Each structure stands twice: as C-alpha cells, then as structure tokens.
C-alpha cells in the first residue's frame, strides 16, 4: 500500500509551557493509537530542536561537518509520522486528525515514491 510522510512544522523557540503542551501530546498520542488500531501507522517520532543538528557533506572521501540545521528559517521540522493509506484522501484524513491534535501547527502530507512491499 502507498505510504505518506506527514511532517509537522513548528515555530523556532521554546516549546509552549506544560499546561499547554500536555493536552496536545495526549491528543497526538490518541491519534497515533487510532492509526495503529486502523493498521495505518508505520513510524513516528518527535525531534530535538534544530540546535542539536549536524550537517554532513561528503566529497572525495572526506566528510565535512557543520553545526546546526541545513535550512535556517523561522520554522523547523518538529516531528513526523509515516502512514500507509490507499490514496491521498485517506492520507489527508490522517493528516487532518494529526493537525487537529496539534492545534495550529501545519502538517505537510507527501507521498513516498515506492509502495511498501507486500
């Protein structure tokens, strides 16, 4: 079945205070459980802030390391989920549920090239 990447974008800066964050995380967890129950969940994870990132470039057998994220902006990828879905409508429905749980954060839905091997 086709798979889709649901990417969560969040603004740079400190996370919201616990009283705001906790209900959000609870709702996100509930959506994840719903995905699992439906057999749609493949993988998901939240990421440490971009300040923890390292960019690696390879050339002529050497690797060059740079501290920090590759793209600098006002927003960054905060986490992602991979779902299997028969078509875009089904994937958008999961994306919508995730976005609903995340309140105002946008979720980008993008298809993978390859289908999951059966």
């Amino acid at each position: 079945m086709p798979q889709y990447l649901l990417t969560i974008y969040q603004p740079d800066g400190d996370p919201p205070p616990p009283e705001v964050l906790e209900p959000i995380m609870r709702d996100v967890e509930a959506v994840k459980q719903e995905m699992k129950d439906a057999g749609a969940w493949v993988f998901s994870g939240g990421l440490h802030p971009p300040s923890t990132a390292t960019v690696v470039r390879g050339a002529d057998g050497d690797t060059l390391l740079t501290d920090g994220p590759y793209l600098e902006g006002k927003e960054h990828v905060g986490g992602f989920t991979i779902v299997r879905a028969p078509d875009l409508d089904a994937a958008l429905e999961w994306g919508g549920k995730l976005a609903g749980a995340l309140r105002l954060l946008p979720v980008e839905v993008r298809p993978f090239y390859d289908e999951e091997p059966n």
Partner: protein
Amino acid sequence: MAVLVRVFGDIDVAEEAVQDAFAAAMTHWPVSGVPPSPAGWIITTARRRAIDRLRREATRDDRHAQAALLHARDEPAEESPVPDDRLRLIFTCCHPALAPAARVALALRLLGGLTTAEIARAFLVPEPTMAQRLVRAKGKIRDARIPYRVPKDADLPDRIRSVLAVVYLIFNEGYAASSGEQLTRPDLCAEAIRLGRLLAELMPDEPEVLGLLALMLLVEARRPARTTANGDLVPLAEQDRARWDRTLIDEGQVLVRRCLRRDRPGPYQIQAAVNAVHSDAPSVAETDWRQVVTLYDQLLAVAPSPVAALNRAAAVAEVDGPAAALALIDRLDLADYHVCHAIRADLLRRLGRADEAAAAYEAAIARTGNAAERAFLAQRRASLPAQP
C-alpha cells in the same frame, strides 16, 4: 476519457490512448462506416491501444506500466461512457489538494476537452506556462494518488463546493474578463454553462448544483444587452431588456423554482433568485428591490462576505436612497475591489457630490484590468457636472 482514466489510473496514458483511438477512427470509419456506438468504439479501441502501449513499456521493466496493466485486466472488455466515470473525474479535477488555477485548467482540459493552447489563450498565459501547470497537476494526481472517486457522503458538501467554485470561476472569467480588451469571453461562459449542465445531469438532487446552473443561465441571458455594437459596457439600468435571451431566462427560472421547492437554500441558489427577480422586471424602476434586499440578507446569513454586503448596499440604494447605501458601503473593507469604488462613485454622483465621485471613479479605474470597464468608468467620470 473518464472511463479510461479510471481503468488505467493515469491521465496521460488515457489521453494518449484517446488520441490514438481518434486517429484510428479517422482511417477506419470512412472505409467501414461509423460504428453503431461511436463512443463505445473509441473507448474499446483506446483501451486496446493503451494496453499495447503499456505492454511495450512493461518490457522495459517499467513498474508503473505493469501496475496499470494489472489494473486494466480487471475490467470488462466492452465499456460504455457511464455518468459515474465523468463524475469521478470531475471530483478529481476539482480536488482541494490542487491549486485553484490548476483545477480550472484541468476541468477545461479533461471535462471541457479544450486544448492546452485554447486554455492558455483564455487565461492570457503563454502556452508553455499552461502546459507546465497541467503537467504538474497531472503529476500530483498520479504520484500523490488523488483518487478517482465520488467522495463519501460526509465529505460531499465540501467537495461539491469545490467543484462548483471551479465552474463559477470559469464563468466569471468569461463574464468579466479580469484583463484584456474585451469585456466578456463568451467561449468561457459557454464552457462553464456546459459544465454546469453536466453537473446538473449527474447530480440532479443537489440544489446548489441547480442553483449555480440557474445563476449562470440568468446572467448569460443578459449578455446580448451588456455591450454595444462596439463592445462598450452597458450597465443593468440602461440595458435594452428586449435583447435579453428569453430562452435562457425561462430555463433559469424553472431551475430557481425547482430549488425553491427543495427548500435547502445556499449561496448559488440565492444569487440565482436575485437574478430571477431582475429577469422578471420590465425596467429598473419596476424591479422588486425589497425582494432583492431580502435575498441578500439571506445570502449574508448563509455565506457572509464583504462582496455580498456590497451588492446588498447597492440594492438598498434603490429602496432607501443613495445616502443610506453609502453609509453601509463605507463600513466595508473592500479598498482593493474596483466594483466597490465604482458603486461608491455612482452613489456620490447621485448625491451631487461630484468631486468625491470623480475621486472614486479614479480609484475604480486604477483597479480594473479590463479595458471595456475602464472606458466605461472614464466616460462616467467625464460626464460628471463641473464643480462650482
């Protein structure tokens, strides 16, 4: 076309196959005669050609081609164009995951059968730009797997809205071209009405579908009276109503009455009803403006928008006078909308405030891209009385 898109799940494969089939028809039909079911013949031939093509590609180990081929084998050999396939294609072309401009282009290409060059001309963009837009949209449909499916009931109202918006966008571009020399592009209006009729045939139980068709018919009926022989704009108040197309008006009014009986009002039905009131009136003075104001009140209740409030204010001017209307308009946030300035200018003119009217005409002229509208506004501004 719609049948083949469903069978092969790929618009490009279907398009090429249909082209192949038409080419084959050009050579076979003059010799063997037109078959009893020409559409069925085209579909069957196109399917066979597409399978041949996919087989050739499959030998190059093209996985997509193989997948499409597998899919195609599930289908029965003979096929007729069933309404369901066209309906599926409509919902695919107008999918909200596609950009509005792409939806319009796809609808004209795949449902209207216009060529890329024709669509590019209609929207005054270079042909490569339009071709690129179509390629990108078709690529997204294929790769992101936008389904060929009538949406489930829960999503249907939203998705129908998206479909209707595409058709109305095409109609409006034809009715008042946003740029260019001509006021209207009758070809786009005709295409939108054709699509509207198709939707009404496929979804006869959706009152908003009927409402949109009625609205387009009633507005289109006035086109012969909307411009002079040299293409100058004639406002509603000065139109020769004998030149309105009674056949279109009758058809539109029958639809409006059908909608009224359903009693599930929506924005298109209400706007159609407003236009039905105009079509009933022998002159501006004899128009039931109170009814128009009431209808706009309803419209604002179901679909509030500043443009609807502006149209309501224009009707209020005919009931309570221009001063009352002006007070309403000055509360609206429509500084970028040329029609708002044009209506203000007309109200100020009627109130004898010529200086302010002139400024409002200038503001309207600066904001319209359509040459005929600009000429009309400039002429109005020039005919204002000189100030003491």
